């Protein structure tokens, strides 16, 4: 049952992959948005923390799994421990490096520079500790099956797991932000930092924890993605830029912006290759610069085009706050 030249199962498969990819984007974009919303700093180190999460996960799994618990339990241990480790690392970085520039003029710029510097520092640091070639990462055996398989449509258990976990996390995050005192402080701090300080709340601790939370989300995303892709020191580069695209598209300053933005961008990313397989392209554009071969690899370019369109037509993003950027 082809749809414009593309098989239905193929379409479903890509939609599913887009959903999975979207989940990663959502987690990353939420992390970035939380940090920006509270501290006004765009974390250019988001990509390398994502990468670090994968590496820490590898270490936990390889060191814990091999001898002791077996791959499945090891994976579960990683699921719990990696976010904690990344949370602590994020807090450490915030406390000892980032906090030094608060209150200075150009603090936001300095924040960008510091996180940028970290993004230069970490990959080579990782190479030094873990070696230059990438690390292998496997889907835990218990999730190595398919829930459903019709033609090209293959609902793998692991990917479904990713979607479920992401949904749980987003809900948890929403609950934290909108139903707890900490969340209230974070949201209040977003709109009026001075006032919050006057109320006697320990703002610096909230900032440290918030930063840690954002980093934990990034690292967790890295851990979850590692079985599906290679784990290497450069895996954060592309993801950082794609996360930026997501927050531009979805808009920062709201909760729903990164979520919807992430899902949309995920779909765009996954469906682009299909454009190259449609009848129209195959028939009329084969052999040209934008023939099927182009579309197979054009996901990234398409994302940029969409981002540029949003910038032109709706600069604050789909759900962004007006004037969130001075």
């Amino acid at each position, binding site marked *: 049952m082809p749809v414009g030249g593309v098989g239905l199962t193929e379409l479903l498969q890509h939609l599913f992959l887009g959903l999975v990819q979207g989940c990663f984007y959502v987690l990353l974009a939420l992390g970035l948005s939380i940090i920006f919303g509270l501290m*006004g*700093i*765009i974390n250019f180190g988001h990509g390398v923390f994502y990468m670090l999460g994968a590496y820490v996960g590898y270490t936990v799994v390889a060191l814990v799994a091999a001898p002791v618990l077996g791959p499945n339990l090891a994976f579960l241990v990683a699921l719990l421990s990696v976010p904690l480790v990344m949370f602590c690392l994020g807090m450490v970085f915030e406390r000892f*490096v980032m906090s*030094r*520039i608060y*209150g*200075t*003029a*150009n*603090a*936001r*710029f*300095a*924040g*960008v*520079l*510091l996180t*940028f*510097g*970290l*993004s*230069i*520092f*970490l*990959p*080579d*640091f990782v*190479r*030094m500790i873990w070696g230059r070639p990438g690390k292998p990462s496997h889907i835990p055996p218990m999730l190595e099956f398919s829930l459903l398989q019709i033609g090209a449509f293959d609902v793998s258990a692991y990917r479904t797991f990713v979607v479920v976990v992401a949904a749980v996390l987003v809900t948890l995050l929403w609950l934290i932000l909108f139903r707890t005192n900490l969340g209230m402080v974070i949201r209040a701090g977003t709109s009026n930092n001075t006032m919050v300080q006057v109320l006697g709340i320990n703002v610096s601790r909230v900032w440290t924890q918030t930063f840690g939370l954002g980093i934990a989300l990034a690292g967790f995303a890295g851990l979850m993605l590692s079985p599906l892709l290679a784990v290497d020191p450069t895996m954060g*580069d592309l993801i950082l*830029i794609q996360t*930026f*695209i997501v927050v*531009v598209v979805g808009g920062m300053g709201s909760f729903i912006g990164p979520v919807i933005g992430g899902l949309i961008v995920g779909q765009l990313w996954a469906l682009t290759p299909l454009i190259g397989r449609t009848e129209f392209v195959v028939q009329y554009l084969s052999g040209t*610069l934008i023939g099927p071969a*182009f579309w197979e*690899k*054009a996901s*990234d*370019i398409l994302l*940029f*085009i969409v*981002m*540029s369109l949003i*910038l*032109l037509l709706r*600069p604050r993003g789909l759900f962004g706050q007006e004037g969130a*950027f*001075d």
Partner: protein
Amino acid sequence: MGPDRPHDRFPVREFRAWFFDAFDRYGIIILAGFLAVYPALFAGLNQSIRLAEDADWEGLAEALATLRGFVPSTPLMIQILIYAYFGIAFNILLGNAGMISLGHSAFFGVGGYTVGLMHSWFKPDTGVPRWMTDTFVRLPLEISLISALVVSALVALAIGKLASAKRGVYFAMLTLALSQVFYYAAQTFDTITGGTDGRGGLANMRLGSLDLRVGIMDATVTYYFIFIVAGIATALIWQILRSPFGQVLRAVRENETRARNCGYDTNRVRLCAFILSGTFSGLAGALAIIYGESVPIENIHFVTSGQVVIITLFGGAGTFLGPAVGSFIYWYLRQLMSTEFVKYLAIFQYWEMWVGGIFILIVLFVPAGILGAIHNWTMEFRLRRALELGGRRDEAGRGVTVPQDVPAATRRQDTDARS
């Protein structure tokens, strides 16, 4: 003004004032002179080593060889010069207009690709019309360099239109993301650009008007060519920055609202600065591939945008030559670490780790950059001078950006203390 006042009892201050004065005025000339003879100096060092070896003066030969390990080679100086110029072009935006662009790799890479592609097209069997290949038997560099300028200007216009309406860190994010389109385009259209392998085989580039060959085989000629071209472009930038337009840029940097209120169309001003910076950066990218005779894809990747930011901040964005100092520090350290220090301690092979760490330290503790810190330290004397001269030498007219700490604490420049 003579040393009659009590606090001028010690001639040391007068000397310092004089020294900084002279350095200000003549430092550039001395530096330019030094750079002009550098290839000869380095060749002389090599020659001395050979002579020493021939004469069996092993101790001397070894000492000189060790020295050579710590001195930049001519090819490395070419690299330093190119990035020094690139940093200065970049600093039109950062230090002067107060705009943080993280996407300058687009201009650098596009400039390089323009030259590279044009030179590989102007050969038989590439589909370029006969009359073109006949007129330019080999494409002269002048044409491709000018084309690089034009193309970079267009790219800067495109990105600028989209991004320069935004401010601050959002602008930074946009320039980063928008510049990466070009990287992905280069990667995707790899039949044209050579993809991740880059485009090679650009031997035999000639400077048409002088019939001079440049490239790897002619390091010295290439050095002088790049030195002169970059030098002229730098002088142009210097002029632009000390012109009335330059002052407007700095006013926009200081307080955009106030600048608007004075009657300046700040959006147009920023776009103009962006295009200027992008065009000059494109030339830097073109020069970069002339020596290497190939276009690596890294030149259009974010890594290059990052390098120019690091270089500019190492030296300091608040002075004109800050990026040049930064370029020297960056490339020199990188070379030292990966070839010399690594002999003693293996972890120096991870030079990016060191660069990143040093960068963080500089942002935290020396935000004005190395040259900026030196300049700040000497500012005390400069300002006193200006005050003493009663306004005859006008700070406003010198075109030197008033010192700043880019991520700065609002420390008071304590000039009142002396009046």
